[in-house]
């Protein structure tokens, strides 16, 4: 039976739910993370999780707010691979701020307008204090020492091209030629009917790319995942070696593959050029034979099997074969294998990469003819092989012809895994010639349950670097950018004029800033060196100091390093004191998007007053509390 049900949200249950859900993420904030066990009481299964995204993935979220949160975090994770914890924490912190506003009797529209303004202020701070990656961390030049002193405040004087472009983009003028905005005239109506067409923007690349110190940027973006970031830097080195003539900043994340090997100690994790695949003992023998040769490679985008059909092909259900003679001994499958093998031998193919799966008999038969079949190859790897070896991916193996077969592929036995019991015995490196840019990260751990977390950490580090290089700028990290935002929010809150359109602007902005303070103190608390109270005192002290000397050399120090000055002895034992303090960076686009998505979530939930549940059975669910049946 269909029905609709309405749940009244008195005292805004939705926001409370959001705040409660966000509580899950507290221990994942900052560089010092704690792992969590999630246990399923009914099945007895458990999962070891180390990020906000994985927690949500493992929870059964049935309420509407939970679903909304999960969808938002999932969308963010898909694009950025990092920052989900920050997103959810702020969604929680700001929903608490909104609850406080509601309690003070501030209307929804006032809350929304003030908070959107607060977000604009923060994004403005991002723009103002973002640091161009050009020339960043270039070895101890004078400008560097200067920057490290007057963090932020001095930086704003630099014309930062990427940022100004971004702002042009935001204003919708898109005048890369630095025209004054009002002469662009793109918004004016030329005719009564047509608007001026937006010209295709040709954002000219920076005239002369300055050398990028990728290692330095990566170090700043480590955020506690030291070993994972080390692997990322190694990939960059491998890739830039290959692309020396193009640009040394190349970091092509599409060409990175991960390969997990359980049972080995963690320090054996490493990076290798090329693509590492795991092979069975039988296949490994073929690989041995094919080593040190230039191989012809076939790329297949589908399965290697006679029953395979391309996507969208439907076999008619009622097909009956009328047999006129006795069936021959060879089956259809056998016929297919004979033809395919003949074709492969004619084309002299030694290596077949398949995105899908292969018929087991076919693999064995290929092995006998010294043809190596590799299954489950990532689409990006296929593409890289297509680009480098000149091969063309085909859907059916029968489509192969001379033009489709690539050349110059190579196989190298990387190591013998030695395990007899498992499916795979040997790890083999396949590469498409000299400068493919393909790189494989081998992740190892003795604890099987930790591999997922290690892989996640690696990808989030890789994506942090990737986005920093795309943004061409980073934010001062370690809490500095948050402190600057808090400072600006509080300053704006203080400047509220009487009789303004929104009389509650000041209060709302202050509460929003409190959410950010909460964020910083939680991160500081997670380091384990400070209590919550101490962290809060430190933060407010710094804010006060800053307010006292605006315009002078006052600055925010990076809180997570310099915090707890009393405990220096303790810190120095943990982390050796370096001569130049390590600088921490944050991603511009990741942070910006996470914050905005957090606020969007809060707004959506805040404006929602009812949940409509469809498909309720009135006899069984009708008795529940709070439900109104339609």
């Amino acid at each position, binding site marked *: 039976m269909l029905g609709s049900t309405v749940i009244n949200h008195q005292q805004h249950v939705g926001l409370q739910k959001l705040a409660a859900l966000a509580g899950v993420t507290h221990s994942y904030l900052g560089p010092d993370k704690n792992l969590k066990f999630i246990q399923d009481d009914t099945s007895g299964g458990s999962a070891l999780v180390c990020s906000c995204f994985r927690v949500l993935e493992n929870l059964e979220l049935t309420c509407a707010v939970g679903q909304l949160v999960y*969808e938002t975090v999932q969308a963010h994770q898909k694009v950025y691979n990092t920052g989900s914890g920050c997103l959810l924490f702020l969604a929680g912190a700001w929903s608490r701020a909104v609850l406080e506003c509601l309690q003070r009797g501030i209307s929804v529209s006032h809350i929304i307008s003030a908070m959107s303004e607060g977000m604009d202020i923060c994004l403005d701070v991002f723009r103002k204090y973002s640091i161009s990656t050009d020339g960043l961390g270039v070895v101890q030049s004078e400008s560097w020492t200067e920057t490290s002193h007057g963090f932020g405040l001095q930086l704003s004087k630099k014309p930062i091209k990427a940022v100004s472009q971004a702002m042009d983009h935001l204003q919708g003028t898109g005048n890369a030629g630095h025209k004054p905005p009002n002469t662009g005239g793109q918004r004016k109506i030329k005719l009564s009917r047509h608007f001026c067409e937006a010209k295709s923007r040709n954002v000219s690349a920076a005239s002369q790319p300055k050398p990028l110190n990728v290692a330095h940027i990566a170090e700043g973006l480590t955020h506690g995942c030291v070993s994972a970031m080390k692997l990322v830097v190694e990939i960059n080195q491998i890739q830039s070696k290959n692309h020396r003539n193009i640009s040394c900043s190349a970091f092509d994340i599409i060409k990175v593959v991960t390969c997990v090997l359980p049972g080995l100690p963690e320090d054996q994790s490493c990076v290798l050029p090329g693509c590492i695949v795991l092979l069975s003992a039988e296949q490994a023998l073929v690989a041995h034979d094919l080593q040190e040769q230039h191989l012809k490679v076939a790329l297949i985008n589908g399965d290697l099997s006679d029953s395979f059909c*391309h996507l969208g092909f439907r076999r008619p259900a009622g097909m009956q074969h009328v047999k*006129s003679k006795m069936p021959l001994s060879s089956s259809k499958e056998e016929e297919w294998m004979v033809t395919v093998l003949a074709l492969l031998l004619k084309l002299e193919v030694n290596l077949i990469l398949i995105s899908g799966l292969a018929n087991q008999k076919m693999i064995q038969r290929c092995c006998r003819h010294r043809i190596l079949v590799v299954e489950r190859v990532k689409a990006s790897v296929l593409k890289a092989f297509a680009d480098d070896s000149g091969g063309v991916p085909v859907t059916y193996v029968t489509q192969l012809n001379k033009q489709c077969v690539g050349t110059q592929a190579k196989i190298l036995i990387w190591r013998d895994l030695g395990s007899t019991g498992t499916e795979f015995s040997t790890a083999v490196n396949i590469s498409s010639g000299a400068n493919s840019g393909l790189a494989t990260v081998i992740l190892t751990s003795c604890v099987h349950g930790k591999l997922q977390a290690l892989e996640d950490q690696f990808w989030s580090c890789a994506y942090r670097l990737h986005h920093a290089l795309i943004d061409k700028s980073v934010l001062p990290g370690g809490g500095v950018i948050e402190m600057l935002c808090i400072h600006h929010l509080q300053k704006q809150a203080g400047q509220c004029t009487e009789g303004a359109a929104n009389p509650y602007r000041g209060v709302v902005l202050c509460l929003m800033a409190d959410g950010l303070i909460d964020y910083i103190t939680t991160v500081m608390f997670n380091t384990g060196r400070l209590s919550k109270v101490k962290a809060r005192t430190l933060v407010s002290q710094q804010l006060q100091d800053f307010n006292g000397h605006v315009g002078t050399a006052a600055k925010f120090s990076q809180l997570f390093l310099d915090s707890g000055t009393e405990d220096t002895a303790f810190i120095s034992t943990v982390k050796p004191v370096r001569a130049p303090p390590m600088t921490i960076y944050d991603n511009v686009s990741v942070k910006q998007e996470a914050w905005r998505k957090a606020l969007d979530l809060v707004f959506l939930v805040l404006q929602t007053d009812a949940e409509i549940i469809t498909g309720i059975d009135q006899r069984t669910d009708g008795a529940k509390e709070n439900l109104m049946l339609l």
Partner: protein
Amino acid sequence: MARLVRKSPSLCTDLPLDNDDISTKLNLLRKLLTSCFGPTGKLKQVHNNVGGHVVTTSTSSVLLPAVSSSQPFVNLIKTSILNHVSRFSDCGLFAAALCLALTERAKQSGLGGNVAIGLNQHLLSLCVGYLQRDDCGCKVKLDFCSSQNLMTLARSVISSKPACVLTEQETLHLSRLAVQAFLLTVPCDSPGTVTLGRTVTVPVEGHSVLNSAVFPGLLVDITDAIYPIKAGTLNSNLLCTVLFSASLAGDLSELGDGIIEVHDGADPDSQILDQLLEIGKQVVKDEVKLFLCQKVIHPVLQQYLRSQGIIVIERLGMSLMEPLIQMTGAQPVAALHTTLPVKAYGKVRELTLRQFGSKTMLQLHPPGESAICTMVLCHRNETMLSELKVVCLKTEHVLRLTLREPSALLGGGCTETHLAAYIRHKSMSKAAETALELGCSQTEYHLGTEVFCRSLESVAAALEHNGGNSLIDLTHAHHWILPADVMREYGEESFGFCGCGLVESSPSKRWTYLNTNYTEFSPESLCGNATQQPRVLDSFVAKLNALQVAVETANLALDVRYIIQDVN
């Protein structure tokens, strides 16, 4: 053998509006829908009871299909509103709010069903007559020489849905795009009957709204294409194009469930493939450069076509077919006959590759003047994007309706209060005769008028959701909102502007709360001499129809005597 099951007797409900269960449900539906109304309306999260995807919305066209009741009476009203929405896109919530308010109030007033129906019908015709008059005080003539009114109209529609979560700047950007897209779909120089073009919407998740844009021609998503389209092939001018609506996957799926007998040795798959390759050969001979297919193309055929330098795009989807036909002039080929008539081929001027974040799109430029354009809509997350898409389609429809009747009604509740004041004044002047004409007493006549006007006013008041008060001024009868949290000392000076933004508050103005009695007056019109431009406008055609639908549905609801349900 058939088994006999005893049939349960039908269920009959006498006087459904007097039924407690039904009136509670109608009341709930009214609260549910009116709470969504307007730019500060509350959102609803719609999901199923097993925790599926959550839709957050306040749009009637999304909300109403999700709401289904066990009570046929509720569904009757719902369906009627949905029919209006499917034809006019806009003003669904207005119609629902008015209809349910009218039903509820008429019932409460104690008026006899027939009297109430007759009165409603009479008052509706008064309203419609007034709205269609040239000197109507709440109507604005649209001037196509300037885009300002069109922009205002678009902006009003877009800003009325808070689930889009747009900033002022973003709303403006989208209204501009909506008007731009609308103007692009009006053909310039076609004599005779004018056929409007189309806007195809392409949603892109994860980007700033300000990246949204409108392009002439069509954009085809080729992100998932395995074979990259090389930039070199794009430069040739005026590409001969063929468009298939039939599947070229090489299967026999369109045969249905029947049984096919195949002789051993015959391979239907390869025979179909041969047929497909025949098509390929003819297409190459006819110098086709762009090969489009609504459905799947067999990889072997694709490989052949590509090897001949033809650009192949498959899986276009149903929704792109109509606009493609209009733009290229190609006739869709629905069968696999080998001889393609020459007139089936169309033309595309050129191709451009465009990148939207992770999406790669191929822009097909129209060969000449064409009224087809594509609107790329970007938003940060899926929830807001899907609402935005609905809203933009609605805006397009509303703008198109202006071509039918180049007028708009004042928004922000001003039309409702103005109409109510007009009806009060009008009905007062000839009360005795009209009552006689309608066959009711004068008291009933006054009561019925009051029900009608109050219902109209309640819809205006429903625009405010934050505890503010609704007021009406006693000269123009426009709608004003006094926010709940405005400091007392500002008092009535803090009004600023009325709901539609046409009237500014002045010390000489007098106001009264909407739910109080005021002496009737003839509301002044100021559209002619105003220097102010209205800030909120509603679609004239949609609202007029919504008004009629609301009153007629309410009349039908008042007229139902029995509900007979077959419960088997």
